[in-house]
């Protein structure tokens, strides 16, 4: 019986730490983005959050053009920018929900979100004054991370709502 309680309490400690890690990640992402000082710092925050909290060293930000038919590469880290100059909305169906403000995540390893050679694990809209001004694309995950986890989706929500400064200089402090 004592053994049962011990293992149960060990499991609870594990669950509590797991919850706490998730809270800490979401909190750190929010604080980092809210405390950015200018556009360059905000883009650096996106890189940090992608690399240190989510687990990808390949990330890009695409801006939405006025006609909302194309997205052009605005900033990137860890990818070949020449391969990802433009995203054509007509050829990328996964961009449709994103342009309406809904992030999309890779559900099946065999199915990519964009028509590129690199695996795309998430496309996250960046909201500026409630409208989608840009998207963050998270490419290949680090080798020891097989897939995005529920907490990563929460972090992406934070990215969506708190990263306006990265694409709109008027948000500079």
């Amino acid at each position: 019986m004592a053994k049962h309680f011990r293992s149960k309490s060990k499991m609870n400690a594990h669950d509590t730490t797991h919850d706490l890690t998730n809270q800490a990640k979401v909190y750190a992402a929010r604080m980092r983005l809210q405390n950015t000082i200018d556009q360059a710092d905000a883009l650096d925050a996106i890189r940090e959050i992608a690399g240190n909290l989510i687990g990808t060293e390949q990330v890009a930000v695409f801006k939405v053009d006025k006609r909302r038919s194309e997205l052009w590469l605005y900033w990137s880290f860890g990818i070949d920018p020449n391969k990802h100059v433009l995203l054509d909305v007509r050829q990328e169906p996964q961009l449709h929900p994103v342009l309406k403000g809904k992030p999309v995540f890779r559900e099946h390893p065999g199915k990519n979100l964009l028509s590129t050679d690199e695996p795309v694990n998430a496309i996250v809209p960046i909201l500026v004054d409630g409208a989608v001004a840009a998207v963050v694309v998270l490419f290949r995950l680090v080798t020891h991370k097989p897939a995005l986890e529920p907490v990563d989706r929460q972090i992406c929500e934070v990215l969506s709502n708190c990263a306006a400064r990265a694409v709109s200089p008027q948000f500079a402090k």
Partner: protein
Amino acid sequence: MPKKVLLVDDSTTTLMMEEMILKQRTTYNCVTAKDGLDAISRAVVESPDLILMDVVMPRMNGFEACKRMRLEDSLREVPIILVTTRGEEEYVEAGYQSGCNDYITKPINGHELVTLLHSYLGE
């Protein structure tokens, strides 16, 4: 007397997260440094019981900082855990050659971090 942990990372996001986890789940005190050079001077002044250090940092990376710390009498025996995004064998081997005791991969798993630190510092 609570144990002291020196957290080293150029990413404020990572430092914030590590500090939050350790404050909530352990009794350790945390001090921070933002790169390898800063870490060496902080470590000499603060005499931490353990150093948790990122590898990729500006000015001086974690491998080099680790090597230099091992040359300091006061830091020779302090456990150093490197934090790396890459878990590949050669990368880990380079860490051990620089004098680290252990390594943990990013993105950090809180339970793994706390368990590892407990194994060196006790609960």
